[in-house]
């Protein structure tokens, strides 16, 4: 077993290695593209499902099924659809993380506190105005919750996609390569870095936003 000190050293060496950083950047870029899609499609669909009862009846179950599917399970389909390339990985991130955002957004919309709705209605808000000025802002804490979870799900889907697609530049391929060469210390160092990036982004961005929103909306 390699010592923690040794792994620590390897982590530092990697972080200053241009080739390694390039691989990390490629993975992060894919994640960003996928996550942007998650934000747009997840929130967009979630708002539609929350707003229109008939859509929710038809597609609501589909969103829940999408959310129930483990991200890795999308990879084979992604490969069949797109081939062994970057698009397949992005597709995996998108489908692995969009479901939770849809489900959270639509329940946020449906579960606006009755008191807030009553207050808005007595002040003359109705229809689309009520939706955009009251219901959507009231749902923001739930949407933020969904995005935070989606980040974690998306990150897992990204790794699954990169590991299985294998041939493209990125952290997944690095893991595959060192595993084939049985380089245990380097493998562990990569894994530490992968976990750290995920935790860092969660703490620096998502946790902060969530905390801010919760204290402001009084849902903490």
């Amino acid at each position: 077993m390699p010592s923690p000190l040794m792994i620590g050293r390897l982590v530092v060496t990697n972080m200053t290695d241009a080739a390694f950083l390039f691989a990390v950047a490629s993975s992060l870029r894919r994640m960003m593209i996928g996550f942007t899609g998650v934000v747009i499609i997840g929130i967009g669909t979630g708002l539609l499902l929350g707003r229109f009862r008939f859509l929710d009846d038809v597609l609501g179950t589909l969103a829940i099924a999408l959310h129930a599917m483990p991200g890795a399970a999308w990879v084979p389909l992604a490969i069949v659809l797109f081939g062994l390339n970057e698009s397949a990985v992005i597709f995996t991130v998108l489908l692995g993380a969009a479901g939770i955002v849809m489900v959270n957004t639509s329940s946020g919309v449906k579960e606006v506190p009755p008191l807030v709705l009553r207050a808005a209605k007595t002040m003359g808000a109705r229809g689309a105005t009520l939706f955009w000025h009251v219901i959507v802002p009231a749902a923001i804490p739930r949407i933020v919750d969904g995005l935070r979870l989606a980040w974690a799900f998306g990150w897992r889907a990204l790794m699954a996609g990169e590991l299985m697609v294998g041939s493209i530049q990125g952290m997944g391929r690095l893991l595959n390569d060192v595993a084939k060469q049985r380089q245990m210390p380097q493998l562990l160092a990569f894994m530490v870095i992968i976990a750290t990036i995920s935790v860092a982004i969660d703490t620096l961005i998502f946790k902060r936003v969530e905390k801010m929103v919760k204290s402001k909306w009084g849902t903490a």
Partner: protein
Amino acid sequence: MVVLERVTKQFSHNGNKTDVVSDIDLTIAEGEFVCLVGPSGCGKSTLIYLIAGLEKPSAGRILIDGTPITGPGRDRVVVFQESALFPWLTVQQNVEFGLKMAGAPKAEQTKKAGHYLRMVHLSRFSGAYPYQLSGGMKQRVAIARALAMDPKILLMDEPFAALDAQTRHLLHEELIEIWRETKKTILFVTHNVREATVLADRVFTMTARPGRLKKGYAIHLQRPRRESDPHLVVVQQRILLGLQEEIAKVVKDEGLDYLVKKTGPVAVGADGSGGAR
């Protein structure tokens, strides 16, 4: 003028329909301050929602200046028990909300919101968010928000119930001041008998299950009033005596009557909340 004609509201609970409020006849004159007191769950909020147009009566009609209401209207605004302020808007934006919905020009929104925030002494907090305010301040913002729409009728649903006694006292004075200045018609619902007698021209008691109007008490005492004014204390006692029966009924329905058997009649606090909540 607000007129309720034989207003009844039923809710169904797994198939059984029960009257939550039943056969309410009530006329409130222009500029009058009317309080409604009754135990928890007797249908006070339901009645407020009916007049606000948020609920439709199962039977009977509600008329404002002779016209039956068909839904929420800018002539009637509700101040709710808990702060129903919008947490994502600043104090100023909350007060402007109704005007914005009405399509008022931005300059007018700013001006009116400023005016009513001054009236509730919160100008300094116009840029704050609701979570930064105390409970009393939130309710003052809610009052300013309601007044900014310049409604004829202010419907207040236990607006001060969650506040401590001192804050409540201050807000009573402030509300009376506002009422005098703006000449609004106010229907104020509370389970606190003392509060009702300090504020109202007329106090009505409500029965529980079904909620009916029980008795009216006119209070011709100059304002500002002190809760402990001997004239008021007499009225308070009379009202409480009338409410005993209703509270006992609630206690029994809620399966708390074994307590009463053990300890004798339910002690009714002077705030009229009784033992049961």
